[in-house]
């Protein structure tokens, strides 16, 4: 009996994971197309990174705190961020939680414990360290995750964060999403050592997973989470996958990259996990088709609705610089509006 229940929940977990992957992929595709049509200003696709992100998400608890980066759409969707939240951000409309202040892809969803994305890469890492310190200080039952690309591991922020987190023995996972490229720079020119191995230099645990497999990423993320939750200190976890497509909608990868993984390629995580899940009996062709069709329907419907929402009111531009607006900003507001 319990075996049957377990099988059932395993199956449900995998269908949910697959669903998040497809929804994320569908949304990506929609936004990229809309960008080409001039309906969206800019975007950094998450395509190719879905499986690793979802594997991580499956190992986390609802209360865990995330300092994500600009390519974490699958992670956010799997953790229950409504796709309207994402689309409104991309549109920068008045329903956007940050009032259209940031470029597309700079998501915020604090209700689902996602902090705010910044552009200067890796500057979220020291922040995550501070948040993890607060977790420890306040004896909260949660851990902190900071995600970033492998290029970001070259920054001083990366070094500072890992070192401090190690010295303070904090409950934090540094989640490195290695897609092989930092815009045009291949990882071989970024660093001379595997990212996860850098953990040893800081005296923390280093782990790596096949980021193209939800199951493998989950297995390793679970180990990382257990390590961190049991008070043994930080983990640096690296997942590897492929950046499918450009760095951003402003980038032309054909200038520097010959081998670009296309959708449907055998290295596409959708193809890989579909196959694996089918083999394990979690998915059937019928379920796959239903999830795909449903995702397209949901994305189209929500996208159209969000696109109709107007821009934030001009005066909002002057708000939230401070809790109280100082005289100089009120004067400027009066002059400009």
């Amino acid at each position: 009996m319990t075996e049957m229940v377990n099988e059932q929940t395993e199956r449900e977990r995998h269908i949910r994971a697959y669903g998040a992957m497809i929804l994320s992929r569908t949304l990506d595709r929609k936004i990229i197309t809309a960008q080409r049509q001039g309906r969206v200003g800019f975007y950094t696709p998450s395509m190719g990174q879905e499986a690793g992100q979802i594997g991580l998400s499956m190992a986390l608890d609802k209360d865990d705190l995330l300092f994500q980066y600009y390519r974490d759409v699958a992670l956010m969707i799997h953790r229950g961020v409504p796709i309207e939240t994402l689309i409104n951000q991309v549109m920068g409309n008045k329903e956007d939680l940050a009032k259209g202040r940031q470029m597309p892809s700079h998501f915020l969803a604090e209700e689902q414990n996602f902090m705010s994305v910044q552009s200067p890469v890796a500057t979220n890492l020291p922040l995550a360290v501070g948040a993890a310190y607060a977790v420890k200080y306040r004896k909260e039952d949660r851990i902190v995750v900071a995600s970033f690309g492998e290029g970001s591991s070259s920054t001083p922020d990366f070094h500072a964060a890992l070192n401090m987190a190690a010295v303070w023995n904090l409950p934090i996972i540094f989640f490195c999403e290695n897609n092989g490229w930092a815009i045009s720079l291949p990882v071989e020119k970024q660093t001379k050592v595997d990212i996860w191995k850098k953990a040893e230099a800081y005296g923390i645990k280093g782990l790596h997973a096949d980021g193209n497999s939800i199951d493998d990423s989950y297995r390793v993320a679970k180990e990382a989470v257990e390590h961190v939750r049991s008070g043994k200190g930080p983990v640096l976890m690296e997942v590897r996958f492929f950046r499918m497509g450009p760095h951003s909608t402003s980038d032309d990868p054909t200038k520097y990259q010959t081998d670009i993984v296309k959708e449907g390629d055998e290295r596409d995580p959708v193809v890989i996990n579909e196959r694996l899940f089918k083999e394990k009996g979690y998915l059937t062709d019928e379920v796959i088709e239903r999830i795909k069709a449903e995702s397209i329907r949901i994305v189209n419907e929500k996208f159209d609705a969000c696109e109709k929402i107007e821009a934030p009111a001009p005066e909002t531009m002057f708000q939230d610089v401070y809790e109280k607006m100082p005289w100089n900003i009120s004067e400027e507001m009066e002059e400009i509006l």
Partner: protein
Amino acid sequence: MTTMNMVQAINHTLDMKMSADDSVVLLGEDIGVDGGVFRVTEGLQKKYGQERVMDTPLVELGIVGAAIGMAINGLRPVPEIQFQDFIYTAFDQIINQMAKMRYRTAGRLPLPLVLRTPYGGGVRGGIYHSQSGESYFVHTAGLTVVTPSNPYDAKGLLSSSMDMNDPVIFMEPKRLYRAAKAEVPEEDYREEIGKAKLVHEGDKMTIITYGSMVPTVLSTVQKNNLDADVLDLRTLLPIDVDSIEASVKKTGRVMIVHEAPRTLGMGAEISALISERMIEYLYAPIIRVTGPDTPIPYRLEEYYLPNEKRIAEAAEKILNFR
């Protein structure tokens, strides 16, 4: 003569300098194979090799620090910071090493180095791809800060900057990169550092501006038939106080236009200089038309950037002041 946009003019200047002097090297993120995210260094790695056009790891602090070391040891590096918004992790290297090297070595270790970086808004870049950070650098003794407003000046000013034996922050208004083409001579020429250019002549008012705002000011002046001197500063440090003085003493009315936030922007320093040296020539208070003291929002960017309407309104106010 050929016509070039600013991207082409800068590319052409770098090319010229590199072919003339093999101590000139370039380093930065994505500047080699990719040719730079704005294509400013397009083709240069192919032509001069990876040793002279370096795709660095993602670390601004390292790019700037290493450039300083290269300059100390015989090279003439031209590092690129992809967006000025990302220069701040290198701030310590710029403020505490680059700016102070000549002084702290009594001139024994000069730094022939030009740090290029695109800045400013108008490309829907939101908070982190739009900032105009000139004030941070203009506040720092030991730096020279230059910003062209057109392809011709871009070449002349970059050439002069690369001749210098002092570090230059060369700020490129990214909004103007491809905005206009201009005649740019193929041959070598220089535009003097520290010298403003009178880009429109008039008697009733002086408009002082630079970089991305120059075309906006000029179009406003033309559309409204303003009888104004327009001074394109071109060098922000040191400021060309003589050109300012000559114009202000003639017109007695001053407007300063920049995209950067008002508080402690260039306008503040220029107003102070004018007040100290020629306040008795003024018929009206100095007016600043600038970006507000807020970050630059993504969706509402057009409200942030000074535009023709705001400049024209300010002009009316200045001209009608009695």
